[in-house]
């Protein structure tokens, strides 16, 4: 019996997806997990993997729009006879624009589920307003009203649910195996996540590594972040709950600003501070890039902004960009980050100033910066006084830990 390959549901409110490209041809053997085809929805473009191993047949043509759950191809075992597509309906059935009118108005449960999504989200004006204020994407809200309508109470419940854990244990914390001595806490930058430390981690493995995902990023829930102080307080609570006597802090960009704020308020617990292209040392920041990244719903709109992050744009390969887009496929996450960008960087300006904190630092501190950084000007590093070590890198952009992981890793390993 051949295995059905279906159009997956990747967005909460997705009704159908368009096959953009097949990575395999009819008759080709594919393994489970191989990239099989690319789809595009209203909100995202993404790659779909083969659900099983087998020989690919009955492919829906590229460019076809297919309802979720409908087959797009079939995978046959070797030697299995390939006849007509197993389903009665043609595999590449077009999504009907509207259900055909019936002479008898019999209810049609099969259609009922699909119609709300096809018509767009049902939400009351008040619910929409609450969601806007709370930075919640309505697509992430389950409507309890008639026909799945989202009402104010549904949004309020979600806001409450996401606000509640903020009292403790809210943020996703992941740890690398192994390592001894004083742990290293890694704080990633805006619109990134803990996985972005991977290239740098081989150089730091001798220490226990603790990665924190910022709210609305990676594995952390969306939390209301009205301003930088609220975000810094959240990181401070998270640090307190880690219950560490001493820790090294490594922060990149926004994570650098948060590391600096944490070191300022918990000086006795901080062994050292490493700030990579940190925010908070001056007003300038590339607001267009922040907006561009948070708004991007597909590869084509995301990739140009990803290339701006680095100096050597060739390191932003299609595969890398696709991986980033896949990580950002959740519209709720994108909406949360857009809200956070608006709160932290209104009008494309860094609305928080940590220069005084920098001047007060007691822990040994290093600032690392690429001199080709197009997001935050490296000259902000010149705010550092006295004992702060400054490392500037030629031909490096805003992501030194990704652009030159070995060089950065060697430097960090010597001190941590």
């Amino acid at each position, binding site marked *: 019996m051949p295995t059905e390959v279906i159009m997956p549901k990747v967005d909460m409110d997705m009704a159908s997806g368009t096959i953009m490209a097949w990575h395999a041809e009819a008759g080709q053997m594919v393994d489970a997990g191989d990239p099989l085809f690319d789809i595009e929805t209203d909100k995202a473009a993404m790659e779909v993997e083969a659900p099983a191993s087998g020989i690919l047949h009955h492919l829906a043509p590229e460019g076809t729009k297919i309802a979720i759950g409908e087959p797009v191809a079939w995978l046959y075992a070797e030697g299995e006879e390939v006849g007509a597509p197993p389903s009665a309906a043609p595999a590449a059935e077009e999504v009907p624009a509207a259900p055909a009118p019936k002479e008898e108005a019999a209810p049609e449960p099969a259609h009922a589920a699909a119609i709300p999504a096809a018509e767009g989200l049902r939400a*009351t*004006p*008040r*619910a929409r*307003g609450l969601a806007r204020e709370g930075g919640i994407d309505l697509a992430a809200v389950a409507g*309890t009203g008639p026909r799945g309508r989202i*009402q*104010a109470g549904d949004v309020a419940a979600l806001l409450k649910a996401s606000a509640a854990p903020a009292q403790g244990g809210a943020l996703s914390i992941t740890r690398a195996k192994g390592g001894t001595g004083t742990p290293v806490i890694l704080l990633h930058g805006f619109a990134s996540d803990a996985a972005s430390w991977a290239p740098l981690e081989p150089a730091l493995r001798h220490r226990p590594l603790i990665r924190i995902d910022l709210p609305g990023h990676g594995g952390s829930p969306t939390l209301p972040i009205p301003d930088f102080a609220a975000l810094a307080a959240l990181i401070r609570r998270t640090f307190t709950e880690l219950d560490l006597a001493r820790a090294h802090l490594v922060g990149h960009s926004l994570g650098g600003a948060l590391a600096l704020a944490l070191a300022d308020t918990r000086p006795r617990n901080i062994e050292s501070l490493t700030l990579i292209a940190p925010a908070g040392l001056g007003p300038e920041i590339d607001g267009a890039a922040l907006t561009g990244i948070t708004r991007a719903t597909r590869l084509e709109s995301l990739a140009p902004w990803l290339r701006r992050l680095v100096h050597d744009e060739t390191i932003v390969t299609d595969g890398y960009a696709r991986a980033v887009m896949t990580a950002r496929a959740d519209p709720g996450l994108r909406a949360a980050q857009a809200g956070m960008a608006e709160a932290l960087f209104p009008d494309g300006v860094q609305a928080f100033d940590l220069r005084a904190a920098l001047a007060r630092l007691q822990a040994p501190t290093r600032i690392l910066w690429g001199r080709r950084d197009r997001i935050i000007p490296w000259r902000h590093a010149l705010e550092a006084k006295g004992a702060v070590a400054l490392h500037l890198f030629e031909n490096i952009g805003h992501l030194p830990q990704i652009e030159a992981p070995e060089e950065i890793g060697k430097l960090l390993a010597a001190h941590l």
Partner: protein
Amino acid sequence: MNAENTPEVRTLSYAEAIREAMDIALAEDERVVLMGEDIGVYGGAFQVTGDLVEKYGETRVMDTPISELGGAGVAVGAALTGLRPIFEFQFSDFATLAMEQIVNQAAKLRYMLGGAVSVPVVMRFPAGSGTGAAAQHSQSLEAWLGHVPGLKVVQPSTPEDAKGLLLAALDDPDPVMIFEHKLLYKMQGPVPEGRYHTPIGKAAIRRVGSDLSIVATSIMAQKAIAAADELGKSGVEAEVIDLRTVRPMDRETVLASVRKTGRLLCVYEGVKTLGVGAEVSAMVAESDAFDFLDAPIVRLGGADAPIPYNPELEKAVVPQVPDIVEAAAALAQGRT
């Protein structure tokens, strides 16, 4: 109300309160005259004018011939030439016969003559169903007249407002149409003594609530209060707004309530289609209060049908308390 000396408050019926207002006006202002069919010796079709003819004589309380067009025309002309006539229709349904005088003359003359004149006429319309008077004597036509620029249209729902709105109407320089619900004439309620105004164009919040706003007119305001009390037992707190004036409508009171509750139920006896509730709904939908709506607006109005003679059917074609309870509960619980 007079702030200097607090007037005594008695319990009067709605009809008595109207009669008292006319009595005060007749006594204080010799320009005031009453006109209408059988309002003299007979005392009016619903006994509202009562024995006023004995007190003020037939020059102040005038029986008019059985022609609404003729009587209304005399009243409009009298208003134009300096009197303050109160013209009573036997049934509001007979407004149809006097439309020329109401719509083309009373409402238009100030405009047509460049503001040189005004038409301070008051017309009283016994309206609504529930008396077994069948299709030609039971209608609620306030929306018809509410559609005419130049007219003010009020619908008192309590004895106090019936008196206060009539006295306010007499002091208004322009034509004011008062729709009195026939089933309310016997309603008892507190009425202050002496002269006072219930402001035209100002709604009354009859009951404060947080879960939904019920905007109702005339007898439906009373039914809405009863429904809200019933709903209160199950924890649904309805705010009841008695519109009191349908033209000009009290926009601010309605919008403020909807902003607070996020849910709007309009209840009115007139035919639902193109009725007062349609205007209230549109006013909310067009305003900033729209952003506060958490459910579709719901209207309960009269059926798209003539009022039947059969008493059970007569009840069935206009909203009743259980209908309001059901609609309000569904709305408040997010079931609509």
